């Protein structure tokens, strides 16, 4: 019997729950000095002078660097299609462009000396007007990069038809704010660097060890064999720890300049402004169709806030566009976008990266359309869903979905939620004029993982060691996902070696020669597949070897997965153990039993699902309470339901948080006002009900495991479900839309406005 599909408990947890992990800041590094960054306190200003003399004399100060002291070229824009003039300095020298922009690096003997010395750095600023509102950016006289001639980073224009909605009986339009949020990994950013005889060892809190190595090589002019990057235990990333930030890449430069190890860890307050933010889109949504509920045309026009320096955030609309029409067979659809600069923290990928924004837009649009027609939102969805017999399905924006059964997901979730009973309870409360009104929110979503293009790669290797245990090396970079358990399951299932005897190693570029990393819900279907293929290769080698040793035909050799031995079919007594085979292989050619695979995908995959959120809205105060959350998430074949549910739980929690609580806010001058976890409403278990998870598995043909990604589904489906529930609770008052987060005051004001106009 296969171990795959079982609720195997996480191999990595005993360590985390007892002695704790080893994060970058836990690495012992003898003689290390500490870096503290002095950051801009202005959103937009010209630096007229930087006085570091007092700071140099402060206790414990080893060195103080300004941008003028660095022999480093600025960071070019991260994508070739971005405006090339929008470069990012390592340390700002002439202009600061957001509160938090690093200006000075101070190196001290002890950690505590840094903040004291930082208070003695005097930066004189000549304030410039700040561009804070993205809707004001393009037309503003204020340019973040005057040499660029514009604040527009990139425009993704695919054409706009004036006649898109011709023939529609009903057209609804809505401006929707998909607000800026902060990823808030529990482990903030950290880096440490040590040089030994011209070779760098760099510890990174990263989702991409090899990506960090490549960034260091590129930025510091080093060859890959001069750099070893180690991503030890990493406490979360959510997309924001992909690649490398100037503050972390400067650490090895400082270590080289000073001839001693150097380390850096940011504070939470720094992390809230220095780590990239996510989402930050303003969408104009237009939906049109027939009175029977059939949607015929849909358009979303995206304004993306890229922040002060264009990074991946400026490309989010590209991902949004790929998923424009979601789960619906809409004949005509368009998505165009502009990404603009503002004097705020740069935006990056965050759990879903462009796809939650697409799902939020189309799911809100479906509810708006249903409300206009007076139809049940579940029925409008059903009428428009892509049918199970239409896959592979090509959407109007030319995305090709692999597999799905959206109607079944909808049926399952409505059934599990008790949809008609909920509607009856809602009607009862409305009739009674209850202070607490009930809202039922739906979303049916699809997203893209291991994409967006075919040819995504990941590396994996399996080796059977002389003692019969297995070593797995992987190019993925887990930071909470459970790859130690998942990869061990794959190998154990293939070879019959006990789970505990499979060691998984990752995140060390000296041990793992190449890799891409963990983001975009890619790891199992790419990295897991590489491990799976490598295990199959090892079996084939073992079978040949066993056949030689047992004087049998290789085709007659079978793997006994319970006993962990290979034997001749029908005669289990004539067998060889993995240890014996590994020993024989080593004696044969010295190579042992080992295989390395660079897996390459043939297509991305499209996980989908349906969510129902139930909320109580206190109509006197505007307070929203999420009382139930029911989720069907189909990520193809599930390797380990326990791990998959963990991903769903975390994703749903973050998605609910966006709908109800979280928002990065700035004052009109560009000062952040949510830069700690008291002001930024990070969600906790106390604000959430127990989730009701419904299983559903529709395998994909894209890979032999039949697996799709599960890491981001929760945060894609849940946000619009909760937002729709809030609006639904108030729809009898004529309310059609409430932007996120649905804070008590915002909801209360919506009620006030609605009752005033009735």
């Amino acid at each position, binding site marked *: 019997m296969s171990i795959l599909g079982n609720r195997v408990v996480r191999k990595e947890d005993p360590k985390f729950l007892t002695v704790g992990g080893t994060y970058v800041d836990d690495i012992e590094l003898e003689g290390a000095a500490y870096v503290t960054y002095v950051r801009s306190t202005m959103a937009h200003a010209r630096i007229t002078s930087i006085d570091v003399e007092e700071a140099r004399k402060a206790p414990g100060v080893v060195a103080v660097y300004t941008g003028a002291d660095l022999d480093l070229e600025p960071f070019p824009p991260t994508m070739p299609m971005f405006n090339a003039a929008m470069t990012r300095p390592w340390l700002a020298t002439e202009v600061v462009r957001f509160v938090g922009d690093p200006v000075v690096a101070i190196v001290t003997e002890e950690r505590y000396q840094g903040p004291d010395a930082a208070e003695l750095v005097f930066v004189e600023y000549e304030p410039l007007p700040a561009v804070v509102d993205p809707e004001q950016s393009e037309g503003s006289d204020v340019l973040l990069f005057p040499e660029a001639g514009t604040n527009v980073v990139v425009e993704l224009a695919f054409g706009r038809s004036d006649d898109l909605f011709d023939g529609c009986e009903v057209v609804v339009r809505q401006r929707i704010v998909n607000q800026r949020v902060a990823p808030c990994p529990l482990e903030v950013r950290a880096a440490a660097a040590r040089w030994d005889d011209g070779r760098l060892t760099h510890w990174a809190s990263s989702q991409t060890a090899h990506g960090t190595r490549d960034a260091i090589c590129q930025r510091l002019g080093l060859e890959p064999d001069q750099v070893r990057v180690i991503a030890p235990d990493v406490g979360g990333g959510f997309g924001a720890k992909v690649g490398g930030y100037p503050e972390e890449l400067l650490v090895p430069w400082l270590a080289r300049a000073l001839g001693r190890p150097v380390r850096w860890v940011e504070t939470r307050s720094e992390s809230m402004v220095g780590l990239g933010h996510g989402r930050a889109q303003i969408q104009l949504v237009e939906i049109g169709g027939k009175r029977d509920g059939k949607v015929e045309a849909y358009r979303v026009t995206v304004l993306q806030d890229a922040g002060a320096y264009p990074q991946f955030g400026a490309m989010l609309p590209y991902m949004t566009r790929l998923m424009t029409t979601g789960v619906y067979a809409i004949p005509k659809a368009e998505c165009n976008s502009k990404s603009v600069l503002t004097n705020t923290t740069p935006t990056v990928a965050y759990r879903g990266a462009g796809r939650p924004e697409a799902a939020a837009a189309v799911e809100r649009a479906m509810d708006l359309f249903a409300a206009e027609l007076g139809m049940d939102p579940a029925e409008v969805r059903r009428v428009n869903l892509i049918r199970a017999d239409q896959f592979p399905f090509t959407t109007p924006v030319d995305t090709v979905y692999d597999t799905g059964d959206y109607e079944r997901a909808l049926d399952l979730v409505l059934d599990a939620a008790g949809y008609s009973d909920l509607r009856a309870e809602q009607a009862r409360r409305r009739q009674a004029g209850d202070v607490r009104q009930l809202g039922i929110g739906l979303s049916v979503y699809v997203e893209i993982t291991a994409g967006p293009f075919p040819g995504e790669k990941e590396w994996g290797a399996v080796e059977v060691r002389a003692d019969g245990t297995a070593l797995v090396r992987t190019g993925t970079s887990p930071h909470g996902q459970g790859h130690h358990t998942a990869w061990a399951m794959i190998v154990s299932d293939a070879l019959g070696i006990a789970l505990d005897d499979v060691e998984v190693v990752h995140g060390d570029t000296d041990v793992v020669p190449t890799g891409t990393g963990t983001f975009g819900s890619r790891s199992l279907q790419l990295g897991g597949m590489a491990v799976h293929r490598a295990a199959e290769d090892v079996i084939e080698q073992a079978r040949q070897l066993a056949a030689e040793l047992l004087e049998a035909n290789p085709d007659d050799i079978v793997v006994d997965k319970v006993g962990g031995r290979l034997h001749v079919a029908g005669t289990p007594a004539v067998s060889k153990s993995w240890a014996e085979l590994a020993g024989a292989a080593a004696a044969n050619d010295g190579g042992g039993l080992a295989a390395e695979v660079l897996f390459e995908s043939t297509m991305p995959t499209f996980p989908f699902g349906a969510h129902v959120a139930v909320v109580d809205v206190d109509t006197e105060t505007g307070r929203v309470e999420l009382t139930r959350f029911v989720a069907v998430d189909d990520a193809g074949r599930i390797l380990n339901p326990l791990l998959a549910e963990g991903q769903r739980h975390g994703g749903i929690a973050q998605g609910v948080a966006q709908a109800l609580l979280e928002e990065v806010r700035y004052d009109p001058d560009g000062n952040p006002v949510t830069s700690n976890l008291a002001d930024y*409403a990070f969600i906790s278990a106390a604000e959430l009900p127990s989730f009701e998870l419904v299983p559903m598995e529709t395998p994909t043909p894209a890979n032999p495991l039949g697996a799709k990604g599960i890491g981001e589904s929760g945060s894609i489906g849940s946000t619009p479900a909760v937002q729709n529930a809030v609006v639904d609770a108030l729809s009898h008052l004529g309310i059609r839309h409430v932007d996120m987060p649905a804070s*008590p*005051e915002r909801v209360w004001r919506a009620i006030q406005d609605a009752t005033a106009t009735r």
Partner: protein
Amino acid sequence: MIPSAFDYVRAASVDEALAQLAEHGDEAKLLAGGHSLLPLMKLRLAAPTVLIDIGRLRDLSYVRDGGNHVAVGALTRHRDVEVSDLLRAEVPLLAHTAGLVGDPQVRHRGTIGGSVAHGDPASDLPAVVLALGGTLVARGPGGEREIAAGEFFHGFLETALAPDEMLTEIRLPKRPGAGWSYQKFNRRAQDWAIVGVAAVRNGGAGVALVNMGSTPLRATAVEQALASGASPADAAAHAAEGTEPPDDLNGSADYRRHLVQVLVRRALEEAGARG
């Protein structure tokens, strides 16, 4: 972040703490549970040069029956207040509200004296002490004095305590048979109240407001309306009178003025139902 440098003294007795306070003046701060002071220091919004740690003065951690009142030692932790049988029986409003302060970590470290002496208008317990008409006992170089709760809160984070004084005990009058309610309105369980209302009723009513001004406030207009026979709903309509609520991330002043009326009405109704 790391706080600015400070000296640390651990006091072995109240007298020693007072002597240290006398020596260092306003440069010094008393450290009890640390859950208000330390975050301010880590953000470098407060930079005392001396911390006098009174956290181990176990003789100031108690709940005692004082006859017509219950006496709570200033260093009694929120969790101990929450689960005290005596308080649950005699001053249930305080025990209940202590269970709503912050989160479990905060409740196991933070102290009632620290919370009251900090005088944060957004904190739960000062308003409760105010609504109950409690008495604060302070010790200083001149000995001990009693301060009525109504005289204690002077301004934003300012109290009647002199720089060389220390809050040692909080006395809450017993009000047998009184109905009570605490309405805490916040977005997350661990947050400060956007607006909070503490109410106690038997015969007369005590109503106090959280986060409706620069200090915890007594809702005098509501109390007067009730005294003249107004219904809870009518009395609650006066809840915003004389308040100057903040305008911040969690709510505008207008919204708070609305919210306080709803919450006062609910508090009075709940207290009425319990009484």
